[in-house]
Structure formats: structure tokens, C-alpha cells
């Protein structure tokens, strides 16, 4: 109902405005001043209406004021033609009603100013006072808006041609301030008027009024452009007057908007120098004002100011901007008891960003901000609130992104305290962010104490949360990724110094061992390899006679024994076995025979007791053989014991082909290249013969059950043949031509039995043998000449 009426009235009024404007224009075109005035007054009469809502009135106003432009031009032309302005000024006052009269006065007044016949100040003063006659809030507001608009380009603003002297500047200033003051008062009155209006209507109008507050703010924009408003004038005149208005109007909407206006319109340097005053006004504002937005806006501007002009930085220190802002925020947060946690964190976030921009060298300031936030959070207790958590993450990420150096973050004593306020999942997410910063920036964490501090921050990832095992809830893949991140991190915890690095290793170990059986298989390996690298470096360096106990390879290896043991207990036996073998090799390189033997013993124990899957056994055994084959540190007895056991395991593998292969690989255990007494030709052949027996058994089984693939076991014979050739070439005197011949014949006969052909392996082997025979270098071909071979196929 109401809307329809509104539309109707607006339509009617607009039509009337249009019509009068048309006649006014016609009068202008025929230089008929009298008629022009008559019709313009009639047109402006439409603005006397009380029937329209603020938005609609605004539309009407725009129309009318638009039309007044041509009138203004007409007045200018008239004066150019010789008409006296003073007379015109007189004439327009004959208009019947106040409102049209005043609109016309403003119009002619602006022309008057331009003419410079009379002091601008007098006219301006006149106009701004006369407008007082219209006390109706809506109409008065728009009238003054028109006044501001029409005089704007006649004021001595920066870059205009009307520069003038200080006095002129002050007059203009005074004019704008007064207009602003009056408009603000009118607007505020609009908010609280009319108890007679229906509630609905009022609500709607309140919303529309929100938009109109911009007309008030426009004056501040004009002020911002005025020539002559330097810091002193701003500080002594402009700001106090504006703030007085802002505070006294006691209207939440106006206060919020105007504070923001002040901050956006005036230069940052001014704000810096009047920080006290500006911040001092904040507690005086209505409690319902969203101070957070105001202060955030201010801090953001100041941050950008600091970021963009290095010369300004000393000023920040000089006015002690940081403490003032910190203090102001503290007061706001204290005063607004109901402020939600996310809002107070946001405030601190902006302060933090400010601090990082302006005082990035002052870690103590940064820590202070963190501390203030902690105090605030402790007052509200632990948060489950998503919004607040998000803000805290942004809060904690800000210094990370600024410094790109986690080592700096570790110096902030309050940082871990802030993290305490995150719920478990977010805490872990934050820990990942920290780790990623290290990985991305290649940050080195170089002392044991820094390692401790870092693990304190990421403890959510390192161990279960306060007795709760949330293992059931977490996604398996996510968990692995998490722990892999921790694993990657270990490689950045490093120091070249041979005294510090062992300390680091010990510390890492201490933290990782709290992780529990699910984490250990993922986090222990990188620790082990980091330690092995250290041992290698230690070997390379000089013996340090003053070094303490921790800095010997032996001590580190001892630590590793105890560490890998933990893995074995956590049922990661295959991994533990591999790590024991790695450690054994390191011990070998350090010439620590007993230690190396110990590692082998442990590996063998695991093999016997924990590795039961046949495939796993095959691989594990292959690794044992490969490692043992390279060991040089053992005396004959120890070596024999270990070799004997390995051969024993080989013969007992589940599947016969696997047995065969493992046994012939054991032959290598009796033959080492580097001279020494490790070339036992007999035992080599014994192994190969033993393997052959197993191959025979396989062949028998295959022949017995016709359908089975017999080429499989022929392959075993070919492999053995190749092994014999290997040792022949190495000069094992026990490998005779006859042995090889008979094996070759065996292969031939077995292949004939099989349905399929000889297979490529035998072909390539034979080809190789022929090739070696033809070798020009006598040694090789001599050996091969020993073999009488008949070719088949």
C-alpha cells in the first residue's frame, strides 16, 4: 500500500518538476528572467513535499537540482550581459516560499562568488546561515547538500585557480565545517523523529537514511580537498570540530560512518600526528558502534603508509604509535564485554599486521601483541568457535609470511601460547603450515634448543592429544601425509658443527619417541639416516679430544641400536631389519667390529622371529647377503658364524626355487674382490653345488608333474651356469671346465625334454661364452678355452 502511494506521489511530483522545468527552459531561451524565476520557483516548490520517503525524495531532488544547472548558467550569462548580481540576488528573494527561495539564493550565490564582486566569505556566511530557516530534517539536509555541491568548485581547493590567502582558506574552512555541523544535526534528528509514523514505515525509512548519511560525509571529502588545511589547521581546528560533532550526535550509525570517513579522507601523516586525539574519541562513542571496523581501517591505512614510504617510518616511532594503538585496543576490548572472540582476534590481527609493517625489527613488539591476544583469549576460555579459529590461524600466519623464517618465530615466547587456543584439528593444521614454511623457505633449524621450541609448536602432530587417541577419526591417508611432513622436516634440523649436531639428534629422538606405534615407522627412519650422515661426517673429521661423550660414532650407533629397537617393538620388523643392516654398514666403515656384529645379531633375530611372510623373507635374506658380502670388519670366526647362518636361512626358505637362488648368492660371501683372505674357492663351489642339488629337486618335481613349466627350473640351471662363469672369470681355481661343461650338457638335455624352445637366457649366455672365447686379451679366452662346448640350435 505504502509503496504504491510513494510511487504515485513521486510520479506526480516528477511530472510537475518536468513541466516547470520545460517552461523555465523556454523562458531562459528567450532571456525572460522574470519567467525563468517564476517557473524555477514553481519547480522547486515540489521539493516542499512531506509525502515522500527519503529515497524517493532523493530522486526528486536529483531531478530538480539537475535542472538548476541551466538556471545557473543563465544567471552567469545574464551577469555577463551586464545584469547586476546584487540585483539578481535581491530578485530571487521575492520567491514566495522559503525553500525555493533558498535554492535560488544558493544558485545565484555561487555565481556571485565566482564574480568576485563581493568577498566570497560574506556570501558563504550568508548562505550557510540562511539555510537555517529550513529546519525540516529531510528538506534541510538536501538543501544544504545542494549548497555544498554548488559551492564546491568555488572554494580554494588544492589545484583550483582560486588560491587566495590564508584568510580565504580559513573562511572556506569555516563554511564547510558549519555546513557539515548543521547537516549532521539534521540527519540525526531524522533518525529519531516522528513517533506518529507507523512502525513499518519507520523501519524502512531508517534503512533508507543509512544511505543518506553519505551526503553528510561529503562535506568531509570537500574538507579533505581544501587548500590550506595543513597539519596544524587539521589538528587545531578541523579534527576537534568534527569529532565534537561525531561524539555529540550520539548516533551509532553516524559515528561509525563518519569515523571511517575521517580515516579515509585525511592524509595518513595527519592521523599519525593526531593519533592521541583520534583514539581518544573511540571510547566516547556509543557502545554499539563497531569500533573494530574503525580501528582496523585505521591500522590498515597506517600499515600501508608504512609499507609505501620508508621516510615516514621514524615518525611512527616518534609518536609511539604502537603503544597508543595497543593501549586503545586493550581499552576497547576491556569495555566491550560481549565482544566475540573472533572480533577481538581480528583487532589484534590488524595490530599485528601494523606492527609487522612498521616495526618488523622489533620482535618485542610483535611478542607483545601476541601476549595481549593471549590475555584476551584466556579471559574468554578455550574456543570451539570456527570463526575465531580461522582468525587465530590468520593471526599466527601473519608473522610467518612476513619473516619467512621459522627461526624468528621460535623467538616469540607468546606464539606457542596462542596456539594452545586452537582446537586439536586446527592446531595440527597450523603445525603443518609451520612445517611448510620451513620446507618452502629452506629454513635451517640449527640448535638443539631451537629444535625443542619447534617441536613444542608442532606437538599436535608429534604425539596423541592429552591421552585421547583420535586414531579412529583420522583419515589414514591424511595421517600418513602429516607424518611424512614431519619426516621431511627432520632433514632441516641440521648443523655442520660436530658438537651441536649430536645434541640435535638426541633432542629429535626424545620428541619423536613420544609418538606411539603408529607414528614411529614414519618418523624414525629419517632420524636414523640423519644420524648415519652425522657418523660419516664424524669419520671424515679429526678426532676431537675435548669433545664430550655424545660426539663419537660409537655413541651415536648405540643410540641407533636403542632407537631401531623401538621400531622392532612397534611391529615394523621389516623396516627395523633394513635399518639394522644400514647401521651395520656404518659400523663397518667405522671399524667397530663388535658393534657391527651386534647389529647383525639383531637383524638375524628379527629374521628368525618376526619375518614370516615368504616373499618378505626372500627380500630380507637377499639384503642380509648383500650387506654381509660387503662387510670387511669381521674377523674370520665372526664372519664364518654369520655366513653359516645366512646359508642356513637360504636353504630353509619356503619355496625351492627361492632356496636355490639364495644359496647360490651365498657363494659370493666366500669371495671378495679386494684381495685379503676372502677368496675361498672351495666353499664357493660347495655353495654352487648345493644350489644345484636343490635345482635338481625342482626339476624332478617338475618332470613328475608333466604339465608344470619345466623351463622354470631350466632357468635355474642357466642362472647357475652364469654364476660358474662369473667365478671362472674371477679366477677361482676350483671352477673347472668340466664342471661347466657338464652343467651345459645338463641344460641341453633338459631343454630338449621341454616342449618350448631353449629360451633367450641360454641363447644369450651361450653367445656371451662364445664372445669371451674370441677375446683377444689372452687371459679371458684362455679360461674359456677350457670349456668344450657343442652348440645346439
Amino acid at each position, binding site marked *: 500500500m505504502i509503496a504504491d502511494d510513494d510511487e504515485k506521489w513521486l510520479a506526480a511530483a516528477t511530472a510537475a518538476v518536468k513541466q516547470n522545468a520545460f517552461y523555465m527552459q523556454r523562458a531562459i531561451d528567450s532571456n525572460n528572467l522574470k519567467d525563468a524565476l517564476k517557473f524555477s520557483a514553481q519547480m522547486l516548490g515540489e521539493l516542499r513535499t512531506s509525502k515522500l520517503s527519503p529515497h524517493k525524495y532523493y530522486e526528486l531532488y536529483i531531478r530538480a537540482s539537475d535542472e538548476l544547472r541551466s538556471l545557473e548558467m543563465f544567471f552567469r550569462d545574464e551577469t555577463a550581459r551586464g545584469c547586476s548580481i546584487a540585483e539578481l540576488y535581491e530578485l530571487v528573494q521575492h520567491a514566495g516560499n522559503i525553500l525555493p527561495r533558498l535554492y535560488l539564493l544558493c544558485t545565484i550565490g555561487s555565481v556571485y562568488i565566482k564574480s568576485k564582486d563581493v568577498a566570497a566569505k560574506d556570501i558563504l556566511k550568508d548562505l550557510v546561515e540562511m539555510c537555517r530557516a529550513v529546519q525540516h530534517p529531510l528538506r534541510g539536509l538536501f538543501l544544504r547538500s545542494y549548497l555544498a555541491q554548488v559551492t564546491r568548485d568555488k572554494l580554494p581547493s588544492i589545484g583550483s585557480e582560486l588560491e587566495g590567502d590564508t584568510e580565504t582558506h580559513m573562511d572556506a574552512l569555516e563554511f564547510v565545517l558549519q555546513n557539515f555541523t548543521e547537516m549532521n544535526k539534521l540527519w540525526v534528528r531524522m533518525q529519531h523523529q516522528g513517533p506518529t509514523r507507523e512502525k513499518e514505515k519507520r523501519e524502512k525509512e531508517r534503512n533508507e537514511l543509512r544511505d543518506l548519511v553519505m551526503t553528510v560525509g561529503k562535506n568531509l571529502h570537500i574538507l579533505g580537498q581544501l587548500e590550506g588545511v595543513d597539519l596544524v589547521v587539521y589538528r587545531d581546528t578541523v579534527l576537534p570540530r568534527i569529532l565534537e560533532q561525531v561524539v555529540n550526535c550520539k548516533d551509532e550509525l553516524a559515528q561509525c560512518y563518519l569515523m571511517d570517513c575521517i580515516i579515509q579522507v585525511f592524509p595518513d601523516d595527519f592521523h599519525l600526528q593526531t593519533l592521541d586525539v583520534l583514539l581518544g574519541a573511540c571510547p566516547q562513542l556509543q557502545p554499539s558502534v563497531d569500533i573494530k571496523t574503525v580501528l582496523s581501517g585505521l591500522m590498515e591505512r597506517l600499515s600501508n603508509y608504512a609499507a609505501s614510504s620508508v621516510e615516514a617510518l621514524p615518525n611512527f616511532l616518534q609518536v609511539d604509535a604502537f603503544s597508543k594503538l595497543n593501549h586503545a585496543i586493550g581499552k576497547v576490548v576491556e569495555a566491550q564485554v560481549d565482544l566475540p572472540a573472533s572480533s577481538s582476534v581480528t583487532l589484534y590481527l590488524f595490530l599485528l599486521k601494523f606492527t609487522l609493517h612498521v616495526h618488523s625489527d622489533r620482535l618485542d613488539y610483535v611478542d607483545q601483541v601476541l601476549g595481549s591476544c593471549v590475555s584476551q583469549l584466556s579471559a574468554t576460555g578455550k574456543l570451539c568457535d570456527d570463526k575465531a579459529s580461522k582468525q587465530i590461524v590468520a593471526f599466527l600466519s601473519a608473522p610467518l609470511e612476513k619473516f619467512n623464517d621459522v627461526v624468528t618465530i621460535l623467538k616469540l615466547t607468546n606464539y606457542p601460547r596462542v596456539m594452545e587456543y586452537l582446537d586439536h584439528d586446527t592446531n595440527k593444521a597450523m603445525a603443518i603450515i609451520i612445517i611448510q614454511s620451513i*620446507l618452502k623457505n629452506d629454513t635451517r633449524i640449527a640448535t638443539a634448543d631451537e629444535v625443542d621450541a619447534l617441536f613444542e609448536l608442532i606437538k599436535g602432530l608429534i604425539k596423541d592429544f592429552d591421552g585421547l587417541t583420535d586414531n579412529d577419526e583420522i583419515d589414514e591417508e591424511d595421517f600418513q601425509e602429516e607424518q611424512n611432513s614431519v619426516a*621431511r622436516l627432520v632433514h632441516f634440523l641440521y648443523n655442520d658443527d660436530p658438537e651441536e649436531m649430536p645434541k640435535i639428534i638426541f633432542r629429535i629422538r626424545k620428541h619423536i619417541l613420544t609418538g606411539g606405534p603408529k607414528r614411529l615407522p614414519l618418523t624414525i*627412519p*629419517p632420524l636414523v639416516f640423519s644420524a648415519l650422515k652425522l657418523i660419516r661426517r664424524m669419520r671424515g673429521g679429526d678426532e676431537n679430544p675435548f669433545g664430550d661423550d655424545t660426539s663419537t660414532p660409537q655413541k651415536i650407533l648405540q643410540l641407533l641400536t636403542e632407537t631401531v629397537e623401538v621400531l622392532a617393538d612397534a611391529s615394523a620388523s621389516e623396516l627395523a631389519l633394513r635399518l639394522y643392516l644400514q647401521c651395520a654398514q656404518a659400523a663397518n666403515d667405522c671399524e667397530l667390529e663388535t658393534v657391527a656384529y651386534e647389529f647383525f645379531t639383531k637383524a638375524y633375530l628379527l629374521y628368525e622371529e618376526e619375518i614370516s611372510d615368504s616373499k618378505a623373507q626372500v627380500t630380507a635374506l637377499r639384503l642380509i*647377503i648383500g650387506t654381509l658380502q660387503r662387510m670387511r670388519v669381521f674377523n674370520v670366526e665372526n664372519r664364518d658364524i654369520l655366513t653359516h647362518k645366512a646359508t642356513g636361512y637360504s636353504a630353509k626358505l619356503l619355496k625351492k626355487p627361492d632356496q636355490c637362488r639364495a644359496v647360490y648368492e651365498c657363494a659370493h660371501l666366500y669371495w671378495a*674382490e679386494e684381495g685379503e683372505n676372502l677368496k675361498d674357492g672351495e666353499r664357493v663351489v660347495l655353495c654352487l653345488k648345493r644350489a644345484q642339488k636343490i635345482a635338481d629337486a625342482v626339476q624332478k618335481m617338475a618332470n613328475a608333474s608333466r604339465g608344470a613349466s619345466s623351463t622354470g627350473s631350466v632357468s635355474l640351471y642357466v*642362472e647357475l651356469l652364469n*654364476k660358474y662363469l*662369473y667365478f671362472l672369470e674371477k679366477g677361482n681355481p676350483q671352477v673347472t671346465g668340466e664342471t661347466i661343461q657338464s652343467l651345459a650338457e645338463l641344460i641341453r638335455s633338459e631343454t630338449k625334454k621341454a616342449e618350448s624352445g631353449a629360451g633367450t637366457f641360454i641363447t644369450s*649366455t651361450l653367445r656371451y661364452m662364445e664372445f669371451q672365447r674370441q677375446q683377444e686379451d689372452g687371459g679371458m679366452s684362455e679360461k674359456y678355452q677350457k670349456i668344450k662346448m657343442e652348440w645346439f640350435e
Partner: protein
Amino acid sequence: MVLVLALGDLHVPHRAADLPPKFKSMLVPGKIQHIICTGNLCIKEIHDYLKTICPDLHIVRGEFDEDARYPDTKTLTIGQFKLGLCHGHQVIPWGDLDSLAMLQRQLDVDILVTGHTHQFTAYKHEGGVVINPGSATGAYSSINQDVNPSFVLMDIDGLRVVVYVYELIDGEVKVDKIDFKKASTSTSAP
């Protein structure tokens, strides 16, 4: 011209955090037709990363690989060449050229690619060519005391393969290349 990337023994995250940045910036998706990997990645993230460089990815199992489903050996044909792939911890003695030659005969391939020693090698013997791309991350090795990050790019063109090896030494990427030619299209060695 077919480009084949050969790399392995990354040992992420056990022994290294990631590939060197200089290598990562060189390994751009879309330029390589095949990837053959000697194993010991060790985690799925690395598998996925390699897949983004080239979807035709062949991997064999290293002793530290998390995924137990990779095969122990693999053979494939690219152009005129038969390639064989095996991590190498299965071949004893580790790194022994003659034992590797035996494996090559067994797989009947022109080019055998293995790893485990973290040492780049490329050599020709009676049975063909053996290539070890080393460790792409320069990971610690009990076998090799002084490891530099390295990988291999093979350019297979008809009967010829050019092997480019990229090594990161003192922060700089050094490139070397070796030419190999096959005698004929038969599968027997030159």
C-alpha cells in the same frame, strides 16, 4: 625422437625432503614420453608427482618402497630398444658389473636400468648397455660415500640412444652425454 626419463632412489622422506629445486624446474610436464624409475621413491606423493610429469610411468620395487605392489623387474620396448628395469638390491654383489650383465642376459634387453648404488654409471658390455641414473635427491647411501643428485634422460632415435646425465654438483647442474648405437633391429647385442 623419444625422450625417456630414468631416475630413482629418491628416498623421500627417509633420506631427503624433496628433489632439488633445480631439478624440479627442469622436469616440466609434457616434454617426456616415458619415465622409468628404479624404485625407492618411497611414498605415494612422489609417485603422484612423477605421474604429473608423464603419465607413462614404470616403476620397480626398491627395498624401502611403501607400495609393495611394484614388480621386482620390468621389461618394455621403446622404439627399437628393449629396456629392462630392476632396482638392483637383488643383484649380488651390489653394483657388480658382471652380475648385472647376467641379469641383462636373463631379461634379454638392450638397455638395463638399475639403481641402488646411488652412483651414476653408463657402460657398454657384450650384452648391451647398463645405466644407473644414481639418486635424484642425492640421498645417503651405505655403498657410495659421496653422492650427488643425478638423473638420466635418454633420447631414443632409431638404432641410436643418446644418454644425457644431469648431476647437481656444488649447486650447479652439470650435463654430460654418451652415445650408444645398436647394430641391427634384432634383439641380440651389437
